[in-house]
């Protein structure tokens, strides 16, 4: 309660601008904010990246430890994704155990990596059914100005791309590059007044009716989606977001 109440005037202003084809920060509807990717930011992680998407800033670290595979996938490594929406990043985030919002972010990032087969998990097996590499992808949000999904997804992709499997440290042979095979890039859009806006800021997210995240692969195929918020999309709007995601996703992918 309190500060997070959106002033009606702010909502109206965003609406009036959208009606004229403009966004408050001057972007086109289908334009992402400036993207900065710095890999190898954290040396204590096996792979890491710091990503700035406009004023949103996240650090993603990948750690690998050895452990048991799941009984139903004896020939596959294990992926675990976690997101920390820490109170440093925004006065709307609270400390304590992960809430629904952080869990949703983590699961959507996880889905992109997993279903997009970003990593060849069969190459993370030490002894089938007994010992595999367990891959932890940890998203740490430092500064929050909307669209965590894409900032975290891009950070995860960048961190995985530079990740080294620490086999030597674990006494499992020589270190090797994590077998990354795909870059499932997610692009998120929100709907405000029947307009579709890519890469929403925090202000835009707060007045958005609905949100859709679409992850695509270099083939142009889709690998993960998540619709959020109380509003709804029409089918043609969904197709539009899919098309935008394919187009913008490939631009982002070319940065890796």
């Amino acid at each position, binding site marked *: 309660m309190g*500060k997070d*109440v959106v*002033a*009606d*005037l702010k909502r*109206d*202003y965003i609406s*009036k601008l959208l009606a004229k084809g*403009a966004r*408050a920060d001057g972007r086109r509807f289908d334009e992402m904010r400036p993207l900065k990717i710095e890999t190898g930011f954290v040396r204590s992680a096996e792979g890491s990246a710091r990503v700035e998407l406009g004023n949103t800033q996240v650090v993603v670290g990948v750690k690998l430890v050895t452990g048991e595979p799941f009984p139903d996938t004896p020939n596959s490594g294990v992926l675990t994704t976690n997101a920390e929406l820490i109170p440093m990043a925004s006065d709307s985030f609270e400390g304590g155990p992960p809430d629904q919002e952080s869990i949703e972010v983590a699961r959507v990032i996880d889905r992109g990596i997993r279903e997009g087969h970003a990593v060849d998990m069969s190459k993370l097996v030490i002894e089938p059914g007994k010992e595999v590499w367990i891959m932890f992808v940890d998203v740490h949000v430092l500064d929050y100005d909307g669209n965590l999904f894409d900032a975290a997804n891009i950070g995860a992709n960048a961190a995985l791309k530079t990740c080294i499997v620490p086999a030597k440290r674990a006494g499992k042979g020589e270190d090797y590059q994590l077998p990354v095979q795909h870059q499932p890039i997610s692009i998120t859009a929100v709907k405000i007044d029947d307009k579709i806006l890519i890469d929403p800021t925090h202000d835009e997210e707060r007045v958005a009716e609905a949100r859709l995240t679409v992850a695509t692969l270099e083939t142009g195929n889709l690998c993960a989606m998540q619709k959020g918020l109380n509003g709804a999309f029409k089918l043609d709007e969904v197709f539009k977001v899919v098309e935008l995601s394919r187009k913008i996703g490939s631009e982002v992918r070319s940065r890796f």
Partner: protein
Amino acid sequence: METNDSKESSREIVVPGDLLAISGKKAGPGTYSEGGKIFASQLGIKTVRQDSISVVPLSGQYIPIRGDLVVGKIVDIGASNWLVDINSPYPAPLHVNEVPWRVEFGETGKFMTVGDIVLIKVVGVDEVKRIQVSMQDHGLRKLTGGMVMEVSPSKVPRVIGKNGSMIQMLKNETGCRIYVGQNGRIWIDGELDNIVKAVRAIKLIEDESHSLGLTEKVKELLSRKGSEREM
């Protein structure tokens, strides 16, 4: 370019704990005295006057002072008051006796509701920072239309400018009505394109509040034709 506004030759940025003066002056805002010496208590610009020394802060929260005009946002409604967020650590209850209408007990919601923006005045601050605000003065009211933006409260003097010169220029060049609350909230109303222009100019003032030739930069931005609508 770099010589324009540099009449303040002694402009010095100070940090908490910096020694400002040995003795003889009064410790003004942003400073404290200890053992006859005056030190900075805030990050800011050292300002020396004849009888006092102070630090003009470069950042910080809005702390209400009696008489301040502020732009508030209604965040809760009670039976006989509205709770107004005035962008300070202290919530400000606006009592029904302090509005220009006669409001029956329990009927507050008929007049103003959560999310409304109001122009009010701080009429009381006690020693434990309990705040009283009022809407009973000339021009105070609920604000409708237009847009409300926030700047760092420490930048408000820059938006207003020397003797109101900056705000006057903003009003003249954009034709907008603009109220600058001491709490860093600014209400702007006018043609949409002009509001956008004013918002951009105020953002520029905030980002470059301590750079040379700011007035010129703002003038340049405002005089640009509305042709490039990239905003």
